[in-house]
């Protein structure tokens, strides 16, 4: 790119930036947004240069994770998690389809809400990213050297896994909480028996510190409320996890009204170290529960193991494990500041932002400053735990993140803005509009002990007139603000893949150099992997045919296969023999009822093809791999069921196509090579 082109691009970006300023000013007044005249320069990452942060934005009801660079907002990768992904065969290939298995069978979609980076000593350690599946309760773990989903654990006794996964500060646990209370275990009861027969179950999932492997440690049965969000304590409050709840009214219909009656609902403060002690003292009952645990093995193949029971704790059996903190008006987010002292709730219908003090909570527990109990769980006095309230913050407070400099930033859904306030005196310092209806917001490291308080990212539900219109269905968006100064400055506004529900970010330097470039072919343990073209083969086992095939620039081996019959299950096992960076190969065959395959260098992937018609069908490489990519193709011949066309393929030394043994069709057997019988 010439210098002139770059200059033009800069000018164009500058114009876009200025346009944003004008738009912002005309809507909200210049003083609200601050000076953004240098916005274009602040987010411009010149071609070939890297972003400062990796940001992981959940895809919301698209079921994946989008990886973006900040500050540019450039999309770096779409990582499929809970949703099948035809581009690389995720959830379709034989190696990956077990990842989406649940006790309900394969569930090829989920609603992915809250990414959470693994932490050591309360700060991101760059090892894993956890994310919850909301619809069919699950937690997934992504490996950050490959940016691939490695494990998915189903959560039994739960429904609507929303308050999840929110790690503890050394990855001791990721948590799950049910947004919809249900009969647990499930049984056939009237919905009218909600109060009597439903419960809200919280789950603590142990994370192995070496491997990251997850296992359900214990569950806690609580009253049938809607457990909405959570965050784990840090520093002094390490050992506790806080879950917000709404619907303490226990309505079971038209919750928008029935669950909005009480002045206060509760934050459930869970002392998980106490829970551990109770489990250790055998105070948990073992309850049968069937749940899937899907894990990618060393051979790169995902397999399902089945859980059979859980350890269930109740407040009665484990005193001191759970307390309720009254919190105004159906609280949504619950966020713990970097010092671990302040617990900020987002009472989405409240007129204030209540801030609880962990220290005061400890004292209130010691002093038994209870206002009563709810379903046998002690309810602490609101005043006894309250550190303060942010007055007139705006409308619809949802979530709060922290900049590590004593300030908090709360998203306001209804007034569509970010409000900056001070933890010291709960005074509002600044506010900036968002376009529109912000849900979560994210400061890199902003929910950890050490925020990188340089930017805040607004994650917006509605975009309306922000971009060129695209029919009724419009994109969601993220908006980047500079928070390094006193005033927030809008820098950038970019559309996202899927709903950016919540996000996490870490400095690129932390994981950039750890990225895997390829799979070592000699370490490929897939049972159908081959290390050389000469070892490729086709084998029939009844109605199942295994094609062990290789791809390397720019051909498949074999690329001619005969002897397949209509209705066979043909397993194409493709090994990418390349040991070169960024040389994936694809594989697609006509009429496949699933997806294509994408094989990274050194990797084996398998897709099943069930041919439905007689004919000769091409297969080809889909990922533009080389100058002769278009030539990377082959044919598979499909004969009628029961045909005596023998199995043949063109690997040297194999039975060759065309040398038909009892071939009863009238093909031309060139050069008299046909072996007529």
């Amino acid at each position: 790119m010439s210098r002139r082109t770059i200059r033009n691009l800069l000018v164009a970006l500058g114009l876009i930036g200025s346009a944003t300023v004008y738009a912002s000013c005309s809507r909200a007044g210049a003083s609200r947004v601050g000076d953004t005249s240098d916005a274009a320069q602040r987010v411009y990452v010149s071609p070939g240069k890297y972003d400062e942060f990796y940001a992981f934005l959940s895809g919301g009801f698209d079921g994946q994770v989008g990886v973006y660079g900040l500050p540019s907002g450039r999309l770096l990768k779409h990582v499929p998690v809970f949703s099948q992904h035809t581009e690389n065969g995720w959830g379709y290939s034989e190696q990956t389809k077990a990842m989406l298995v649940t006790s309900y069978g394969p569930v090829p979609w989920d609603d992915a809400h809250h990414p959470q980076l693994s932490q050591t000593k309360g700060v991101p350690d760059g090892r894993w990213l956890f994310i919850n599946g909301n619809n069919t309760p699950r937690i997934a773990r992504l490996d950050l050297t490959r940016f691939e989903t490695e494990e998915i654990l189903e959560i039994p006794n739960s429904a609507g896994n929303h308050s999840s996964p929110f790690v503890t500060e050394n990855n001791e646990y990721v948590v799950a909480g049910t947004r919809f209370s249900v009969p647990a275990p499930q049984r056939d009861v009237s919905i009218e028996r909600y109060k009597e027969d439903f419960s809200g179950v919280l789950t603590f999932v142990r994370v192995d510190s070496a491997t990251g492997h997850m296992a359900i440690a214990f569950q806690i049965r609580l009253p049938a409320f809607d457990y909405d969000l959570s965050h784990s304590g840090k520093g002094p409050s390490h050992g506790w996890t806080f879950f917000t709840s709404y619907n303490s009214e226990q309505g079971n219909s038209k919750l928008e009204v029935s669950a909005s009656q009480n002045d206060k609902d509760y934050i459930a403060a869970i002392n998980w170290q106490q829970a551990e002690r109770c489990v250790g003292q055998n105070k948990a009952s073992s309850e049968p529960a069937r749940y899937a645990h899907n894990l990618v093995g060393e051979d790169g193949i995902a397999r399902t193991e089945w859980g059979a029971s859980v350890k269930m704790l109740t407040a009665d059996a484990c005193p001191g494990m759970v307390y309720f903190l009254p919190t105004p008006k159906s609280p949504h987010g619950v966020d713990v500041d970097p010092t671990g002292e302040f617990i900020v709730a987002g009472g989405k219908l409240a007129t204030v932002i209540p801030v609880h003090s962990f220290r005061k909570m400890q004292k209130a527990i010691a002093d038994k400053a209870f206002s009563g109990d709810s379903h046998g769980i002690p309810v602490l006095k609101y005043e006894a735990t309250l550190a303060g309230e942010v007055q007139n913050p705006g409308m619809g407070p949802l979530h709060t993140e922290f900049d590590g400099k004593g300030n908090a930033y709360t998203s306001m859904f209804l007034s569509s803005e970010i409000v900056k306030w001070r933890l010291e005196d709960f005074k509002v310092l600044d506010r900036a509009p968002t376009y529109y209806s912000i849900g979560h917001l994210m400061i890199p490291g902003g929910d950890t002990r050490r925020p990188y308080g340089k930017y805040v990212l607004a994650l917006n539900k509605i975009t309306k007139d922000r971009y060129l219109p695209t029919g009724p269905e419009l994109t969601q968006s993220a908006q980047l603000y500079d928070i390094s100064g006193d005033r927030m400055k809008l820098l950038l506004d970019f559309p996202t893949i899927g709903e950016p529900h919540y996000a996490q970010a870490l400095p690129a330097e932390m994981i950039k150099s750890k990225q895997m470039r390829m799979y070592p072919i000699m370490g490929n343990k897939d049972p159908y992997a081959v290390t050389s073209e000469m070892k490729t083969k086709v084998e029939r086992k009844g109605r199942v045919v295994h094609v062990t095939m290789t791809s390397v620039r720019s051909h498949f081996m074999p690329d001619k296969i005969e002897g397949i019959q209509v209705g066979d299950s043909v397993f194409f096992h493709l090994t990418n023999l390349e040991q070169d960076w960024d040389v994936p190969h694809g594989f697609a065959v006509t009429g496949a009822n699933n997806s294509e395959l994408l094989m990274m260098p050194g990797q084996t992937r398998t897709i099943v093809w069930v041919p439905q018609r007689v004919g000769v069908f091409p297969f080809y490489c889909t990922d533009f791999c080389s100058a002769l990519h278009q030539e990377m193709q082959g044919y598979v011949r499909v004969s009628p069921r029961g045909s005596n066309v023998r199995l043949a393929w063109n690997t040297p030394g194999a039975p060759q196509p065309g040398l038909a043994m009892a071939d009863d069709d009238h093909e031309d057997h060139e050069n008299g090579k046909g072996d007529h019988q």
Partner: protein
Amino acid sequence: MTRTSRIVVALAALLLLLLYVTPLWRIELHAPQYPEGLGLRIWVDQIAGANPNDLNSINGLNHYIGMHAIEPDDFPELRLMPWLLGGLIAGGLLVALIGRRGPLYAWLQLIALGAVAGLVDFYRWGYAYGHELDEHAAIKVPGMSYQPPLIGSKQLLNFEASSWPDLGAWIAALTLAIGLTVAVLEYRRARVRSAARRAPVRRVAATAIA
């Protein structure tokens, strides 16, 4: 030869031991798709990629132009060269032990001969790989051959190929340079000495006048 010269020659010979652990020659390939580059390193006993998979990748790419795959086992020189190098080192030590100029000159000629032979051999292999191409190759450019430069850079289709001495070659050159320096000094010392032998009177006289 003086004691110092003999020690220096011995050290120069021992310097060649480093050739067992450093590559002699390097070939670098750069293309738009390979900003990080691919590389070959020629060692005294092997040909290897600069990175573990480079040789494999280079062979993979070369198949398009019909070039033979580079297989280290195809080079008998690589089995011979460690012994020749050992011989040169032993020879250098022997020269130091004998301490006479004749063997020193012979040793230096052997090193120079080895270097020239190595370059000739390298050129011949380069020529063979660059010209003996599969007639069914995917990419055939009339009149094009793919011989890498003996030394320097050359554009071969989308790749810029560079060939330069690596550390081992520079060490060998250093050994040769040290040896030559010693040889020159010894030669001059001997000439002064023989001149002195031929004209002892004049020298005494000169000393007397001084």
